[in-house]
């Protein structure tokens, strides 16, 4: 008995969480896929009606806005956060004084919840309360900074707040990466008289490729599931100019009693995540097999 237990203990311990994941993740993905093919409104129904919900989804201008916002927000957020994070990490890596304190300062926004970040930036960017009114008060009455209330620019305020929140975290990832590069190589390069910027671009950064990939995956999934930041910062407005797929899904499922529509938008969101994660998993698995 004890021998059996010894052999099977890992399986026994893992079984409950395995079963839970099977039901609550994959089971509910399957359920959502099923419901997305029905005409469910207030309560889920299980009679299949083909791809009607997807047709409605792609006919909806609001969904168009949401998905375009996701591309715009995702691209800007990921690229700028990574560039900024890398830059900060390189600057911090110059063996400066009080590095620990500065690192902590940059990392701290990560400790805030998105709701706090969103609310703080909402006040900072509000034309009547924040930057605009402050600069006007300094004697520049023509100064304008109304991105938050301008439907064409409001999405960039979300990018701004998200970058503020996450670039410190990206910096920490890159800093760890920089420190793990073999010091001997760098010393050899310095002996050969290669300028510092060349050492970074030709040696250090290329050797950090896995870190870039991790940072990208973390930021990408943050972008796709962004919800609380939008709710706190703009509430999806002005109009629905800053809607993202997650807020669209919430509105359909919980405010409008249109569960079928919500399920189909959730499926599209999942496919977007798959499109990013599957190539990553593939490359990871292939690397291990080699």
């Amino acid at each position: 008995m004890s021998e059996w237990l010894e052999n099977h203990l890992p399986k026994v311990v893992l079984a409950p969480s395995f079963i839970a994941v099977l039901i609550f993740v994959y089971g509910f993905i399957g359920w959502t896929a099923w419901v997305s093919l029905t005409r469910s409104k207030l309560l889920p129904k299980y009679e299949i009606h083909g791809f009607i919900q997807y047709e409605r989804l792609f006919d909806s201008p609001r969904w168009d806005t949401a998905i375009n916002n996701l591309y715009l927000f995702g691209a800007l957020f990921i690229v700028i956060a990574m560039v900024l994070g890398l830059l900060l990490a390189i600057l911090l890596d110059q063996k400066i004084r009080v590095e620990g304190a500065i690192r902590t300062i940059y990392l701290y926004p990560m400790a805030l919840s998105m709701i706090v970040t969103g609310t703080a930036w909402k006040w900072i960017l509000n034309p009547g309360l924040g930057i605009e009114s402050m600069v006007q008060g300094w004697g520049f009455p023509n100064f304008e900074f109304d991105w938050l209330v301008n439907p064409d620019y409001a999405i960039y305020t979300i990018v701004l707040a998200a970058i503020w929140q996450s670039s410190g975290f990206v910096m920490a990832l890159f800093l760890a990466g920089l420190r793990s590069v073999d010091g001997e190589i760098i010393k050899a390069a310095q002996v050969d008289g290669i300028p510092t910027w060349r050492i970074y671009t030709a040696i250090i950064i290329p050797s950090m490729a896995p870190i870039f990939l991790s940072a990208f995956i973390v930021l990408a999934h943050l972008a796709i599931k962004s919800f609380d930041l939008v709710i706190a910062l703009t509430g999806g407005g002005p109009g629905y100019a800053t809607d993202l797929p997650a807020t669209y899904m919430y509105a359909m499922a919980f405010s409008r009693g249109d569960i079928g529509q919500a399920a189909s938008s959730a499926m599209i969101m999942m496919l977007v995540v798959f499109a990013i994660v599957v190539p990553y998993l593939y490359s990871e698995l292939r690397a291990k097999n080699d």
Partner: protein
Amino acid sequence: MKRFALATVSTLAVAAGSSVLAEPEAEVLHWWTSGGEAKSVAVLQEEFASNGGTWTDMPVAGGGGDAAMTALRARVLSGNAPTAVQLKGPAIQEWYEEGVLADISGVAEAEGWAEVLPASIAGHMKCEGTWCAAPVNVHRVDWIWANADVLAANGIEMPTTWDEFNAAAVKLMDAGVIPLAHGGQSWQDATVFEAVLLGIGGPEFYQKALVDLDPEALTSDTMVQVFDQMRTMRGFVDENFSGRDWNLATAMVMNGEAAFQIMGDWAKGEFLAAGKTPGEDFLCASTPGDGYLYNVDSFAMFSVDGDDKKAGQELLAKLIVAPNFQKVFNLNKGSIPARTDVALDDFDICANLSAEEMGSTSAAGSLLPSYAHGMALRGSQSGAITDVVTAHFNSDMSSADAVQQLADAVANSY
């Protein structure tokens, strides 16, 4: 086996119930959790208790009822619905179609609801001919509120047409006052939109466009004019309106920063709470044009098992519509009673005006459900319209494009 035992017990209970008086009990799901609202619902709770009932309170705050609806969905799906749920408008019929509402025609007929409720409001309480819900109050939505001092200082009367409103607004802008206090949240945009639509198109057009969703009305020239007026109104709002809560907009009217606000009569509660007197400090009037848009809160009665619960449900329905509760509740909440035979001596002039016009518009057939507050249409349809209204108001979309989008959105919402 368990089911059999339950069936036996409930049969026994039914048998016992016929001889022994049932003890009324009710579980009530609602989202009246803030100050005045919580006080209002406590009135009902006390009355229920003093009639020998046991009240189980199930308040679910948040999201303007979204959280409560999620809780309700979970309860219904698990086969354990609450006795009564705060529901309103076509959502009542939507739940009825799921086959989960109870028939309370017995109480309604014994209490003569049909005689005391305006016909169009009574219509919302019926599901295919049987009564299934009890109305609590009537909020009027198409109100225009004004700061009396600001109007007097600029020599402006309460506008009775939209042209007068526009002229007054231009005058106010020249005087450096914000003409219209508004919060850029989609439901507030929709509230202004339906008032404008009722004023410009008239009650018949409102019925066709926002209740019947007649495609011809939706794409008509009148609808283009409505969007034109919305574009004009956009110019009367300060630039900082995005995302502002409605009560902050009310505060702007109160302190004279802005002159008008278009909002339902819950705005009156803000004025009164700040110690302002209706008719002196602030003015209330219906928005320009004929008609009356109502937002009626009600409790839908869900199918429950057991005599105690059924007795509780009937007692609750009876108390909700009884004159005493209708009066006390609405004095607390700022709305007016749904039944027309309650004396309004204790109510303020705005409430009296509201009740008077409810009677006259009911007779004229222009007592209409508010679309912006979920009385006229089901969630997916009204949501689709609101999307277009708010997108138009918050961008430079042309009225013709908005009308086209409106027709498409409505067609796509079924």
